[in-house]
Structure formats: C-alpha cells, structure tokens
C-alpha cells in the first residue's frame, strides 16, 4: 500500500488516520458516558477524565492532520456501479462527520477551559485556555458536546452500515480500499 492516496485507493496515511480516529471516537464516547456516572470514590474518578481529555486533544490533532492530508492527496475515484444517490449520501455523511467532530472537540475544550484552566495532554504539557468566561460557557458547551456526540454516533452507524452494505451486498471495493486490502474489482495502476 502506498503512503499517499492513489486514484483507486486510500494510502497508508489515510487508512491509519481513518481507523485511529474511528477508535478514538468510539473510545471517547464510551469513556465519556461512563466517567460522568462514576461515584466520587471510584478509583477512576480523576483518571478517566484525564484520559478522556488527552485522547480528545489527540483526536483534535488527528482531525486537523486528516483534513490537511485530504487536501494534498488525490481522492480515490468513485467506484463503478455505485448509484448517484449513494455517492451523494456518502459525501454528505463524510462532510457532517468532519463538521460534527470539529464541533465536539471544540465544545469539549470549551467545557474544561471555561474558567481559564488548561488541559493536560497525557501529562506531557498543558494546552492553554484561549476562550474563557463566555456566558454559561461550561454548561452550554457541555450540552453541545453531549448532543453532537449523539448525532455523530448516529452518523457513524450509518457510515458503517453503508460500508458493510457495499462490502457484503454489493461486494465492491469500498471497504477494501479503506482497509488496505487487495482490490477485487479494479486494476491498480
């Protein structure tokens, strides 16, 4: 697999970005829902938010790199046989995934930094608070963070169902080219 995208498939960098972000999103959602229900004496009461915030910052960085990498790489061509509405729907879902993930990482950042405290990145250094003291900042950012996450989980389900549909029903290369697998139905140059 090449590092860069080709017209037929995603390159190694895109594949790693995709799956590492997928892992981060699902891990963060699970961790976030679990940690906000912990009791005060749970051994994870302070460590779970620490990891959630650190991984969240990592996701933000991955998102920026991903969008930049997307800009400087060719986009694999449409897969023959896919219908126009499928291509359009997939593109809309991809756009909303990027947009909502950006909203999620920004709103998460605004919760923790609402009163000027920075956020530790795995204990290596602290990302400073840049925007503080907006009216009810932490509460409003928290509500946005929660509900947009719910929206993204819905989109992730749709996105995954679409991929499985192409892989299992249509038997095309949609999922293969994001897994770095050998393509069945296209000749690679």
């Amino acid at each position, binding site marked *: 697999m090449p590092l860069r995208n080709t017209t037929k498939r995603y390159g190694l960098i895109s594949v790693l970005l995709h799956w590492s972000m997928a892992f981060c999103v699902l891990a963060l959602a699970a961790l976030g829902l679990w940690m906000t229900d912990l009791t005060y*004496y749970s051994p994870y009461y302070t460590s779970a*938010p620490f990891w959630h915030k650190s991984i969240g910052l990592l996701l933000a960085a991955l998102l920026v790199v991903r969008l930049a990498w997307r800009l400087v790489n060719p986009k694999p061509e449409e897969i023959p046989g896919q219908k126009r509405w499928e291509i359009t729907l997939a593109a809309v879902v991809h756009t909303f995934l990027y947009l909502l993930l950006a909203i999620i990482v920004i709103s998460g950042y605004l919760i923790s*930094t609402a*009163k*000027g*405290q920075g956020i530790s990145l795995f204990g290596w250094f602290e990302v400073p608070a840049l925007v503080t003291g907006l009216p009810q900042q*932490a*509460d409003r950012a928290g509500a946005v963070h929660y509900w947009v996450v719910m929206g993204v989980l819905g989109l992730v389900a749709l996105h995954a169902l679409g991929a499985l549909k192409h892989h299992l029903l249509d038997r095309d290369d949609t999922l293969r080219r994001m897994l770095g697998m050998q393509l069945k139905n296209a000749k690679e140059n």
Partner: protein
Amino acid sequence: MKKTFAGLALGSIMALSGSLQAADYVIDQKGQHASVNFKISHLGYSWIYGRFNDFSGDFSWDADKPEASAVKVSINTTSVDSNHAERDKHLRSDDFLNVAEHPTATFESTKVEMTGDDTANITGNLMLNGVTKPVVLDAKFIGEGEDPWGGYRAGFSGTTTLTLKDFDISMDLGPASQDVELIISVEGVRQ
C-alpha cells in the same frame, strides 16, 4: 443564593448613630461588599471554599431593637463558583444544585434572638434545591456608620451548617463531606 442576613444586631455599638427606627438596608452586592461563601471538607483532608457570585437581598436593622430585625436574600444558584470549570458545571447539575430546575435559593428570616451584645441567632427558612427547611444563622454584627461617600452602612456576618441530604443533594462525597458550612458576609446600604 440569596442570603439573608439578618439583621443582627446589637445594640451597644450604635449608640452614636442615633437612629431609632428600624432602617431598611439593601445588601451592597454591586459594590462587592457582600459575599455568600461555602466550605466543605474534601475527603476529610482539607477545605474547599466556593461562593455564589450573584445574589441580592435586604434587611431591616435597628441597633436599639435588634430583635425586630429581618433579612431576605435571594441567590442565583447558577452563579456557583469554586474556581474550577468542570467542578462548577457538576455543582450546577442535578447531582448537586440542579440549577436548571431550581435556579434560585432564598432565605427569609422569621425570628432574631440576641445571644450577646453583638451576636444573634437568626432563624429563617432556607429554600435550596427546591427544599425549604428552617435553619439558624449564627450571626454577628460587625459595625455601622456613615461611609465616606454620603451613605450609611451596616454589616454582619453569619454562618450555618447544612446537611446536603436534607436539601436533596444526591451526590455522595464521602463520610467527611456530608455537611457544608455557609459563610455569609454582608454590608447593607441604608435606603
């Protein structure tokens, strides 16, 4: 929260002021000469202090008739501030103050009993988190007199201890942290 402070009073200090009528004072929250604070144990190892930044209130007070004093305070519970964004967000949630449902806490005095020359027990009803319960503020008259800008001021401090469970605050912070102490310090400007 609004806190009420009561008129506490006491009399001896006032002899010079000459006011014989109970006067109405508005708590000087705008000038930040008043604060509603709380303190709670962290695990039994230290104290956490916090405050409510937004409240309003007034009291009547006559040094010669301190037992006729009365106080009313209204506190905006969304203004809770412990200088920690995530903790404050948690304090506003339904684990603690449930400010979405109960954005206001109030205290209204019902009785002032002098316990010394400048100390009093102020009994009143505290409504917090939608629960109304009588509480007794252990209050102290600090002083009164003219200010340098043409006004007249009187100030008090007071404390009381609340059990979180009594006010339906559901989060369990551990055995050392079942109670919270309210510490109020107010200055009123005579109207």
